[in-house]
């Protein structure tokens, strides 16, 4: 058995011969022996150096063996020094007495080598085992106590706690130096903690920023075995040359080192050096040291995070001192409030700062808590863009403060779970938003009132046989839709339906202003023209002159439809300034026709001349006017309501009264929109005239194949009818012109207009009134832009293209209408 230090045995006997032979036997077995001749001398020797075992004669002059062993001092680690009694007497009684007195064994004299060594060896081994257990228990106690003290240690006491434990272990191991090294990055390490035995020079100051790679073998051992144990530095393996060169000059004989591990990587180490003597560490001890190392590491890491936090806090304090926003420095992934900035008091007043998230949420209005909580939950999740801020209200009885909260994780090298919540007082902004909202609502209310009281006054008509119905649904943003009616004579009825571009109060005022212009101009004309009815062209052009410049300046415009119904003679004169078509429901055929004009909206072109057009109607026909909001209403699939549905609704409800037709049409639009809301006003106006035709009204209606050969018979038939009716009234030339226009129209239709000529039919209707004539030709065909046909110059000797020109020149109104079933109608009117 190899001993770095031999076991020390005290040999006590008054007989020198016995001492000599016993010493010889013991030394031959490798023990170190000191001698004493009597009990007093033995006690003195023990006081100087405590032996591992005492071998003592029972009978000695003076203090005998049994008495002396009662006075032996305790061992260094506690417990009595074991004593083996030697006695010549071979008596059981004496042996029992000795054992009772505390001896551990009994050897008979004369001493026999084999017996002596067997007894001593057994005792020494037992002793060593006991010592190891005691040592282990002591190390365990220190490591355990260190663990406890570390947990309880305040951050500022970290170094002290490590130092205390390190010193206790050093003392226990009787080592001369105990130390902690921590790696610092950049391939260097520093001695952060050190304790030394008395008489040993501290080295810590010199061991800062030492390159790690000066201990290559050592590091390899730490990584591979988890311990470096060197009982004798002189016996280091050849690959540890670098280590030896450093350790030997320091006089180090033995050492043990365990690693400090962070996430499985060596991040430093704890070691114990023995200078004065050789020492070994058992596997139990190194294991416990490793456990101690783990505790130290936990403490150091905690300290590192605390230091980082302290550093962040200082920085936080510095940065947030002058900032009006309130900053909440939070740890534990936004769970614990570590610190708040001075700005907090500006929002929360004198309330103490919350300790944690729950405390913070309690200061927030209960309606907003979940949203803030979600924000805090999401705060630490790494993402490309920062989270959008959340706007919340403070709780409590005082005036509500609106806060915008945003969060940012603080990135640290080691994911310390720190984050910041920034709370900004946005009450002022919220209040002004609210004011803007309120102002908007007030404005809306005003425009709604203007619209209700001025723009959309309930239309009336003073004719027992006429009906009018109107409905307007203002959108969320009221605009300048308006309609108005004038009845200048008992036999006429004027209706204006307009849509002013411009929303809210501006649009409403514009609507009111333009509406007023029409009334003003109409009144002027009435004054100047005496009893004559002001022409609708005069009214529209006059009003346009008055508003065009202003509209142009404002880049605004107004679409408008001005209609005048001649109730007795059943004619509609209208000017369409870019408005929606008028829907004309023919009671007799139960078909709807779309009536369009060709003028641009008011305000588009300053020199636009507004030309009236005319169409005839029959008793019980229905006219429907509507704003673009109706057909442009969209449903959830973004489909528009459209003309098709509108016409279907009218045809479906044509048997109803006009009020009911309007109401049902509105319901149809609403059902279509299904709660999608309306971005534009919906205006629907319907009129119907029931007055019968005049007695002198005559009509010729006939159906012909849509071929060129039909032209001449139609021409001849109508020419005759006109001649018969207007013989004494209309000059021949006028009749010739009408026939010519009819001829041109028919030729155009059969040559260009009819979509399926083989079986197509022309429905020709000639309506003759006392003072005007109407010609309508209905045929299957596609809508086309009849307003864009140019007039040729005869000097260019073109063969074609005079037809439309002739029609427009000879007739007072030429209009093409279409329905949505592939029907076209040419409608011409001529004043007689």
């Amino acid at each position, binding site marked *: 058995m190899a001993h770095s230090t031999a076991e020390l045995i005290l040999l006590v006997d008054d007989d020198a011969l016995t001492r000599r032979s016993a010493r010889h036997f013991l030394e031959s077995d490798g023990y170190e022996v000191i001698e004493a001749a009597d009990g007093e001398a033995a006690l003195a020797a023990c006081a100087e150096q405590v032996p591992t075992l005492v071998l003592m004669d029972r009978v000695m002059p003076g203090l005998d063996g049994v008495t002396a062993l009662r006075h032996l001092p305790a061992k260094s680690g506690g417990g009595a020094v074991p004593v083996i009694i030697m006695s010549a007497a071979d008596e059981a009684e004496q042996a029992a007495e000795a054992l009772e007195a505390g001896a551990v064994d009994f050897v008979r004299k004369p001493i026999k080598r084999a017996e002596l060594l067997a007894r001593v060896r057994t005792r020494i081994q037992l002793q060593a085992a006991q010592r190891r257990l005691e040592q282990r228990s002591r190390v365990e106690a220190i490591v355990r106590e260190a663990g406890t003290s570390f947990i309880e240690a305040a951050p500022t006491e970290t170094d002290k706690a490590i130092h205390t434990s390190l010193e206790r272990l050093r003392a226990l191991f009787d080592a001369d130096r105990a130390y902690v090294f921590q790696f610092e990055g950049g391939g260097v390490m520093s001695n952060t903690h050190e304790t030394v035995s008395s008489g040993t020079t501290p080295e810590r100051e010199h061991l800062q920023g030492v390159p790690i790679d000066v201990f290559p073998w050592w590091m390899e051992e730490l990584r591979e075995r988890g311990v470096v144990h060197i009982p004798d530095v002189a016996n280091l393996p050849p690959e540890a040359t670098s280590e030896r060169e450093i350790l030997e000059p320091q006089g180090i004989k033995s050492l043990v080192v365990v690693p400090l591990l962070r996430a499985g990587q060596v991040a430093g180490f704890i070691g114990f050096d023995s200078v004065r003597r050789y020492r070994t560490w058992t596997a139990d001890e190194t294991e416990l040291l490793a456990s101690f190392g783990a505790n130290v590491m936990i403490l150091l890491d905690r300290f590192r995070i605390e230091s980082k936090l302290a550093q962040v806090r200082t920085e936080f304090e510095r940065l947030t001192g002058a900032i009006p926003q309130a900053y909440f420095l939070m740890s534990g992934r936004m769970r614990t409030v570590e610190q708040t900035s001075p700005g907090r008091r500006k929002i929360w007043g004198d309330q103490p700062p919350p300790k944690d998230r729950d405390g913070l949420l309690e200061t927030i209005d209960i309606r907003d808590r979940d949203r803030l909580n979600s924000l805090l939950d999401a705060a630490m999740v790494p993402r490309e863009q920062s989270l959008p801020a959340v706007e919340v209200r403070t709780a409590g009885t005082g005036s509500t403060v609106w806060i915008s909260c945003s969060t940012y994780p603080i990135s640290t090298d080691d994911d310390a779970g720190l984050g910041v919540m920034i709370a900004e007082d946005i009450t002022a902004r919220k209040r002004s938003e609210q004011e803007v909202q309120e102002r908007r609502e007030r404005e809306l209310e005003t425009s709604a009132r203007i619209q209700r009281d001025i723009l959309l006054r309930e239309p009336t008509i003073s004719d027992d046989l006429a009906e009018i119905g109107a409905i307007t649904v203002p959108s969320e943003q009221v605009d300048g839709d308006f309609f108005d009616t004038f009845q200048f004579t008992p036999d006429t009825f004027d209706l204006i339906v307009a849509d002013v571009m411009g929303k809210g109060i501006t649009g409403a005022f514009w609507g009111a202003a333009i509406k007023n212009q029409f009334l003003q101009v109409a009144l002027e004309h009435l004054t100047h023209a005496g009893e004559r009815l002001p022409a609708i062209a005069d009214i529209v052009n006059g009003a346009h002159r008055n508003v065009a410049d202003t509209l142009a300046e404002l880049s605004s415009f107004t679409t408008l439809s001005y209609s005048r119904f001649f109730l007795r003679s059943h004619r509609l004169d209208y000017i369409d300034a870019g408005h929606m078509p008028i829907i004309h429901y023919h009671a007799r055929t139960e078909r709807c026709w779309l009536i369009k004009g060709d003028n641009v909206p008011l305000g588009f072109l300053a020199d636009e001349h507004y030309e009236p057009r005319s169409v005839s109607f029959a008793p019980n026909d229905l006219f429907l006017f509507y704003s673009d909001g109706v057909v442009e209403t969209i449903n959830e699939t973004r489909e528009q309501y459209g003309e098709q549905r509108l016409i279907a609704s009218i045809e479906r409800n044509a048997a109803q009264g006009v009020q009911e037709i309007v109401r049902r049409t509105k319901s149809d639009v609403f059902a279509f929109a299904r709660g999608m809301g309306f971005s534009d006003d919906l205006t629907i106006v319907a009129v119907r005239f029931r007055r019968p035709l005049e007695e002198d009204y005559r009509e010729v209606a006939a159906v012909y194949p849509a071929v*060129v*050969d039909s*032209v*001449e018979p139609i*021409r001849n038939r109508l020419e005759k009818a006109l001649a018969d009716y207007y013989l004494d009234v209309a000059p*021949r*030339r006028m009749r*010739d*012109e009408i*026939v*010519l226009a009819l*001829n*041109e129209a028919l*030729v155009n239709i059969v*040559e260009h207009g009819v979509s399926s000529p083989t079986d197509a039919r022309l429905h020709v209707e000639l309506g003759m009134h006392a003072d005007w004539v109407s010609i309508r030709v209905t045929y299957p065909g596609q809508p086309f832009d009849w307003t864009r046909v140019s007039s040729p110059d*005869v*000097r260019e*000797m*073109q*063969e*074609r*293209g*005079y*037809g439309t*020109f*002739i029609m427009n*020149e*000879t007739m007072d109104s030429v209009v093409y209408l279409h329905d949505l079933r592939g029907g076209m109608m040419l409608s011409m009117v001529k004043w007689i």
Partner: protein
Amino acid sequence: MISTRKQGDVTILSSDVDHLDASNSKQFKQEVQPLIGGSTKLLIDASTLKFVDSSGLGAILSVLRDLKKQGGDLKIASPTAAIQVLFDLVRLERIVGVYASREDALGAFDG
């Protein structure tokens, strides 16, 4: 559909039908075309035409264009009231001489 006769160097043309319109304007052109050559002087006696429409007018203008290309000339005599309505509408007199009688028209050629 047309009848012609010569008076001096003027070819006098009259219609056998009382209308010149979409139904027969092509035929009219086809029949007049052979009469044009050199410096033809053509007089349309319109007294028999009760109705002419824009197709008929187109045919007349087509003939006029061909005549002018070859140095010829066209005049119209004795339009009925119904035809005069059309001529007035398109201001035909700006390019074609229209005369109340055949004699006036013939005299105009000489001038």
